[in-house]
């Protein structure tokens, strides 16, 4: 049973971590948290099932197509829900605009795809048991994203530009960096990471429209606990969450596992509102 907890726990934890990273990428680009992170994650699973199962496309076509869709939705998110409200003084509007768009995505999926969860295609036939692809695929995806982001941020000019925009938006603008297109590209990247999460976790989570709100919440927990913008925190938080959830599941059963996770989350958050990583001082007056 310990095996099962670890394998499931790592797998869903990796999915949560990836959604957390999605939140982070969007946040560092725009200082905005978006409700679309989990929804696009859900789309990763749904589109994967759509392209490969329903339309019969081979994996090496379906997967890039899904990634492309994720990028496109990320860009649309930036254009219609983030960019217009960044100019406004009223800070809270982005919560509403991204929520509205996230709901539209969810409802559209429910109506056009299905309200029932659908099976996700088997991608690589290894397993069952610990080596089953449904377990290590999400972990692999998570590792690949971490490495990829590290390479991007440390060794490419555009990655440096992303870091610059995140650290000091004003100075970046003054330097002549194309702040707007960089933000769009960040959102496209975030969209791709989200669909990757849903795609890699597809066999475990299935292609289900209801995954959206669930991923929104469980993908947010690592961010809240690990600190905003910290990818390392998101990974540690996500894996820890996944393992804790599976352990609680096993010990108490499904319902009380959710309650346990939530209670721990709320307590930690109230004790350390800025996350376990540290405090951020804000000058108000």
């Amino acid at each position: 049973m310990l095996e099962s907890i670890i394998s499931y726990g790592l797998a869903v934890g990796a999915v949560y971590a990836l959604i957390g990273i999605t939140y982070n990428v969007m946040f560092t680009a725009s200082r905005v948290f978006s409700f679309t992170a989990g929804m696009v994650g859900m789309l990763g699973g749904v589109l994967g099932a759509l392209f490969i199962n329903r339309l019969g496309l081979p994996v090496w076509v379906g997967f890039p197509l899904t990634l492309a869709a994720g990028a496109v939705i990320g860009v649309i998110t930036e254009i219609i829900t983030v960019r217009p409200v960044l100019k406004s003084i009223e800070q809270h509007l982005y919560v509403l605009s991204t929520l509205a768009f996230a709901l539209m995505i969810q409802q559209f999926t429910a109506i056009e795809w299905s309200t029932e969860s659908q099976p996700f295609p088997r991608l690589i036939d290894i397993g069952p048991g610990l080596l089953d692809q449904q377990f290590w695929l999400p972990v692999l995806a998570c590792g690949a994203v971490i490495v990829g982001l590290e390479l991007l941020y440390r060794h490419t000019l555009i990655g440096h530009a992303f870091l610059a925009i995140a650290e000091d938006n004003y100075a970046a603008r003054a330097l002549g960096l194309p702040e707007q297109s960089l933000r769009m590209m960040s959102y496209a990247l975030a969209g791709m990471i989200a669909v990757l999460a849903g795609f890699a976790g597809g066999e475990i989570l299935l292609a289900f429209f209801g995954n959206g709100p669930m991923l929104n919440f469980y993908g947010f927990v690592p961010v809240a606990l690990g600190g905003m913008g910290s990818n390392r925190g998101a990974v540690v938080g996500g894996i820890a969450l996944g393992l804790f959830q599976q352990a609680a599941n096993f010990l108490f059963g499904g319902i009380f596992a959710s309650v346990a996770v939530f209670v721990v989350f709320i307590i930690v958050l109230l004790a350390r509102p800025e996350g376990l990583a540290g405090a951020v001082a804000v000058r108000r007056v």
Partner: protein
Amino acid sequence: MDATTRPLARARPLAPRWLGRMEALWPFLLLGMAGLCLPLLDDSYLGVIATRACIYWVLVSALNLVVGFAGQIAIGWVALLTLGAYVTSVLTAGTAIPALPPYLALAIAAVSGAIFGVIVGLPALRLRTFYFAMTTLGFATIVTQVALAWRGVTGGGIGVPGPVFPEPFDSRWGFYYFCFGIAAVCTWMTANIAASRFGRALVAIRDAEVAAEAAGISKPSLLMIVFLFSGAVAAVAGGLFASLQTYITPDAFTFDLSVLFFIAILIGGRGSILGPLLGTILLTVLPEFAAPLVAWSTFLYAALLLVIVLAMPGGIAEMLDFRNRRPLEQHREIAPRTDVLPRVLARSGERAALTLQGISLSFGGVRAVDTLDLTIHPGEVHGLIGPNGSGKTTTLNVISGYYAPQSGQVLLGAEALPQRAPQRRAGHRIARTFQTPRLIGGASVLENVMIGGTIAGRGSFVESLLSLPRHRRDEAALNEAAMLALTTVGLEQLASVRADRLQHSELRFMEIARALMLSPTFLLLDEPAAGLSAEEIRRLGALIVAISRQGTGVLLVEHHADLIFDICDRITVLNLGKVLAAGTPAEVRSHREVVNAYLGA
């Protein structure tokens, strides 16, 4: 006609504020009439819809105070509907304890809703917006999960029958009137709150939190009251909902429903009662009249929300706000009337001075203020000047309690003022203005000023809720005091205008009027002349001098050298956090080092 003979202006009789932004009572009466007459149509399907709309409005009317007025993004409030529905149903069905009569069950549900509302709302005091929204969603999920799991009591997935209210409310139309009655009462109560100092204080917390603190408003206690009320009412709505459904299961309380309530408020417009009422009716009724739309209803609500956020964040209320579309007079002058001041600044016998002793404060590695000593005497205008980064605003923030010094203390007379407690300054009658005007754009100028006098009110929240005599006395007194303050600063003509339509210079004077509401013994002004024309600066100077002549001690932080040297009795010059020079204007003006500091040699 000079200043002393011009009669004191009276504000245009304001429509009772509890009618949102409408001029008259008529929309509510119209809706009321329509509602009362509905049974005459004798369409039972319509009756169900109307009953549902009433029940939703009961919840939304109270949630409106949390979301629309206090600005808290409580998306998951359906948790309280679920709680109320299950508590009422379980208690009347007798699955946990022997069955109770429905009214008692409803009352118990209300109490449990109040408690749970406070629990759900508590994180709002610590967490930022998005985080809080997420936690409310979490609560909503948990409640539904618990309902699903606790099969013995709630019937799990199978559910439990809803309560049935006794005659005459057991018939279809009887129950409708019951819900309609409760909805009407809720409308009246929340409208009373909207027009009370509590409603204004909520909006102040939402839009101008630092200004609210300076006015003495305590965010935690106010939010807790509102969460308590909102939770109780939502639970009652839950009980009614359960009765309407006749049988409830956990999947009746979906994410969609929660979002529906939230969207109704945002579409209706924050800070309004009528707007969310129309929004709720719209969102309940819409899917029914367009059959193919039912499946797409949530999609459409979401799309509508997106459009509202992008195009008209003020919602329906803003669309209906015709009064604030009338053009304002172009060339407006601000003409303060200092003869009115004695009525505004009640002179007390107190002669205590405001003293800073050895104040030091660093940010990071930078010494912002370094062992500063400063005394402001009652009745004097004390200027505080210095180059950028010299610590002027930091000093002001320490005096007003927003920053705590790392050493030293602030004394009022002999009493040390509490550190990092800006909302306690108002009680000591220490008022301030801000470097960038903090205002509530969507409220009128008069309401903005009335916020300054919030702590003068004596009535409790419940008294406001029920519009009892003490509440009405409070309102009349605040109204009059605010008009006096506006007349003093010369803005009485603009009393009923939306504050965000004012010019920058008018906003500066409005802040002073708001500060005057405390009848302050000490007034702290943070660069009040920034952005003013030469003539306006002259009038500002005259006003400040007049205020000080009434016995109020004024601390004037400024860049405008002319104004400082003109009106100050004493001046302190700061440079790099230390006192460079202090004395009369003549002494300071000829001080070599001061000139050097300004010229940066």
